[in-house]
């Protein structure tokens, strides 16, 4: 996926693919939490949260699923490290870097742009930096989080990247 950029009331950028790993396992188990910390130095996120340490971050997807974000080239190595740390405990790890498209929206109106497309409660006391939401954006599945004030990171499936691009740049006019 190539980079593209739109400037409007809110700016939209589609970045080249990020490294992404799906981890399925009991996110509340001490074994898993320790493995994640030792392999990637990231803290396992609480329900609905997003954690970050340097180049690695981790987003809560469900009680037994997390998404780990890495630089694209480092996904396989990170996966191998995690697999080693989790060896012996029931889990599933899969490199999904190429299955996703990654967007960033940025500007003071960003939440109003997003509110046109998603039913998530984006009021300030309900959606904060460090929280992640797995939802739908108009007609497709997506997840997003506020990486910093006025900036939203958003992922969706690769096959609908063009739709998402049209959707976001239309809403961000």
């Amino acid at each position, binding site marked *: 996926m190539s980079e593209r950029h739109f400037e409007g009331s809110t700016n939209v950028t589609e970045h080249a693919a990020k490294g992404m790993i799906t981890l399925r396992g009991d996110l509340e188990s001490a074994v898993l939490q320790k493995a994640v910390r030792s392999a990637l130095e990231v803290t396992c996120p609480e329900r609905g949260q997003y954690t970050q340490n340097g180049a690695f971050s981790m987003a809560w997807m469900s009680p037994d699923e997390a998404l780990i974000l890495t630089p694209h080239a480092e996904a396989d190595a990170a996966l191998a490290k995690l697999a080693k740390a989790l060896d012996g405990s*029931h889990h599933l790890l899969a*490199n999904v870097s190429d299955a996703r498209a990654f967007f960033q929206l940025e500007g003071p109106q960003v939440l109003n742009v997003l*509110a046109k497309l998603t039913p998530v409660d984006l009021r300030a006391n309900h959606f904060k930096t460090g929280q992640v939401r797995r939802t739908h954006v108009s007609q497709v599945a997506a997840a997003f989080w506020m990486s910093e004030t006025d900036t939203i990171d958003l992922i969706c499936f*690769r096959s609908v990247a063009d739709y998402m691009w049209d959707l976001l740049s239309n809403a961000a006019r």
Partner: protein
Amino acid sequence: MSTRLATLGRLIDRTQRRKFLFNGKAMQGYEGDTLASALLANDQMLMGRSFKYHRPRGVVASGAEEPNALMNLGTGDRFEPNARATTTPLFEGLCARSQNHWPSLEYDIGWMNNLLSKFLPAGFYYKMFIHPRPLWKHVYEPFIRQSAGLGQAPTRKDPDLYEHMHAHCDLLIVGGGVAGLMAAKTAQAAGLDVILCEQAEHWGGRAVVDGPKIDGQAAEDWVGATLQELESASNVTVLPRTMGAGIYDHGFALLYERLTDHLGPVETPRHRLWKVRAGHILTATGAIERPLSFAGNDIPGVMLAAAVRDYAVNYGVSCGDRTVVVTNNDDAYRTAIALKEAGLNVPAIIDARPQAEGPLPDMARGLDIEILTGKAIAKVKGGARVKSVAICDQAGEGTVLEEIACDAVAMSGGWSPVVHLWSHCGGKLTWDEAAAAFRPDSTCPPLGADGTGFVSVAGAADGMQSTSEVLANAEQKVLALVEKISGSAPKTSLPAVQEPGQEPLSPVWLMPQGAKPALRAKSWLDYQNDVKVSDVQLAAQEGFESVEHTKRYTTLGMATDQGKLSNINGLATLSNALGSSIPDVGTTTFRPPYTPISMGAIAGEAKNALFQPIRKTPMHAWHEEQNAYFEPVGQWRRPYCYPRGSESHDDAVHREVTNTRANLGLLDASTLGKILVKGPDAGKFLDMIYTNMMSTLKEGRCRYGLMCSENGFLSDDGVVARVGEDEWLCHTTSGGADRIHAHMEEWLQTEWWDWKVYVVNLTEQYGQIAVVGPNARKVLEDLGGMDVSKEALPFMGWSDGTLAGIPLRIYRISFSGELSYEIAVPAGQARALWDKLLEAGAKYDVMAYGTEALHIMRAEKGFIMIGDETDGTVIPQDLGLHWAISKKKEDFIGKRAQERSHMTDPERWQLVGLETLDSSVLPDGAYAVAEGKNENGQRNTQGRVTSTYMSPTLGKGIAMGLIKHGPDRMDEVIDFPMLDGTVKKAKIVSPVFFDPDGEKQNV
């Protein structure tokens, strides 16, 4: 005549003139006018014709309840029908045309229907057009269709933009009158997150026209100050021009915001549909004035009393020089007083009550307005405009006592609370005897998830009459809510109100109460659909006792205004005719939207490229470059074939099949579902999911498997590869990936929650390329990087490695019967591999092939296709797939169902091949006939075609079909009747037409 007054007009700006066109005639109004007020200012009282009798109709109301003044608005691609003139803001260049007339509004041929009205009573269509039968289709229906309908349907694409907006709040308040404002003020002070919406452009509802003093200031000033306070509060969102359209379960509400209708065509979104999730909803939607039923009450110039007042006060428009007020309540006196104070003539107030005492009648008397108590209108005289009214006793049968010349009649039959939103989600109503109206029953509200009401009602919508009651009620409703949420209510101070007191109304459902048939037949209930008192009485007489039946029989309340004016009067008329009480008759159902909303708002941004998502594979751009002809597969677009130059699709498909069988073909198989299943119990799990055994599959090997529903029916199929000790990759059909993923998750989450299995859908992680044909191995060897020989990578094996430096996995599987490698590669590198395969394949005559070539090749081999050979009623045994159903396993999903007697019945149709005797192609879905007829007189059948193609390989038509006792009837010839009356004869053969021993794929 109606005209612009020199004074009044609080909403218009007389310095800003606005030109507009009505039926091609240039007219002028002011900024702030509605189309209706501007038309009245131009003495255009006649605004349309009624639906059935084409009677001339003028505007009746000043708001959303208007039934008559419906316009075709705009031209060209911005044309829109059925716009209510009363809620259409005037803008420079507006172009409106009245509806339902030919050749013109003034001279209309359809008016003939009016002369025939005696012969067009309620239920006329049902009685008249039923016999003789054939006339319905050829005469009656075309005629009725031609004459039915009000506005015209737009024929061009809407160029405007629309959008949705999602919002969340603690309290949604619908209605910006003083009740809504008071409620918002109270909720704001209590710290709730509030959304406040008002359908009109202006705030304050009736109070700003009717003029009580609130908190020592004029109502208008109190409204202005309160609004300002709310707008500056951080916890309140204030939305003017936004109608509460509907309330649904779980505190969900739809609001319809008209962003730019007052500006004319612009480039920004025109309408916005708000999808609000509210903790609680308060409807402060006010009340609607009821017409009175007297003869000639539909003649242009007869209007609701409050509307006459609105036009004068808000727009500085007089609806007539001499206005007779007819009423059963005190409120209409305000109209008489307002008109008199504006210098207009009010010859009389006709009050159906025996006496009129109290402050408002006294004020009218003080202005020397004559008040005739105990009187009624016997009939209104006039054609296209009121000329006079004949007065009679309300108690009598209509003997005329005197006639009063006038050009307008302001009528009021009392007020009906707007209970629509309350009722949308199940709120019940109670009959208020004193007000003669239904109002919300606060003990039966719409219930939320916690079993308590999530909607409450305030103000006039709750049956409150005076401004002081309205404000107190609104405040109390919010305080009760705050207390429910936080356990304590804040201290507030209710503003003092100065207003005249009102005496009770006296219900009047027919005027005069003993009106004779001739008068009743001219007393309108539903203006838009031409339903009169006599029609409802006839319906009752004919046995239509249920209000829902009467509604449909007479069409009462079925027009675009949904009976906002006619509802209660119609119910009362019906209950009188039935001799039962109004609450016993009940109301019809209130359904969203409150008034019609635009289709554009419903669609939002979903048009053109955004109409629906299209899923694209990593090779999609290449397909587009080749001018591929695409077909939809779920939301994917897959190349059906790649026509070259002027080649037909059939020719392209033929070429692709032939080349793949002879040389080398490439298929973009990326859409194939790929689900990874892992865990200590994964083998056990897959043995339940599939009909055959997957736990015994060896690492490095693949196996074809079938999945069934609990009912035994074949649901999906595909190749499973064991990719690790406790890890399997399941391929599903392209359309089945998400469904099968969900199916697996459901069983794991709800039934086998203690099994240690995780599932992840990897469909989009990999591009998948099928390299197919006799030269397949050669091209991979040329790319180099891994051993793809028969020994290293045998049929139904898989292997990881690299080709041309790209890491990938190759599955040696075949859906074509050819030597075939399916290569899975990370999606980001799939296009690169595709390009390299094309490049290296050039010397082997490589060609991409599409889904139709894929289908033909699989049919030539007798492979089934989910969705062709299966349709939700087919079990694997019907398809001769017994070999893929494990006999050893104790259980699998569908096993028990497949043992039921009907499933093991030998009479079930079973899969065979079919070959026509003349080599032609059988039509898809064609039925094979059997001897005799069934109990319905239809020809018996014995099977049907499930897949059918012209086989380029065999040079003849081939088909598969499900035939009774099929496998036992080889070489038998059966008949397939065609639509043109001819019969195709086809021989039953094996479904495997090509290379039955699999020599080509296993090399």
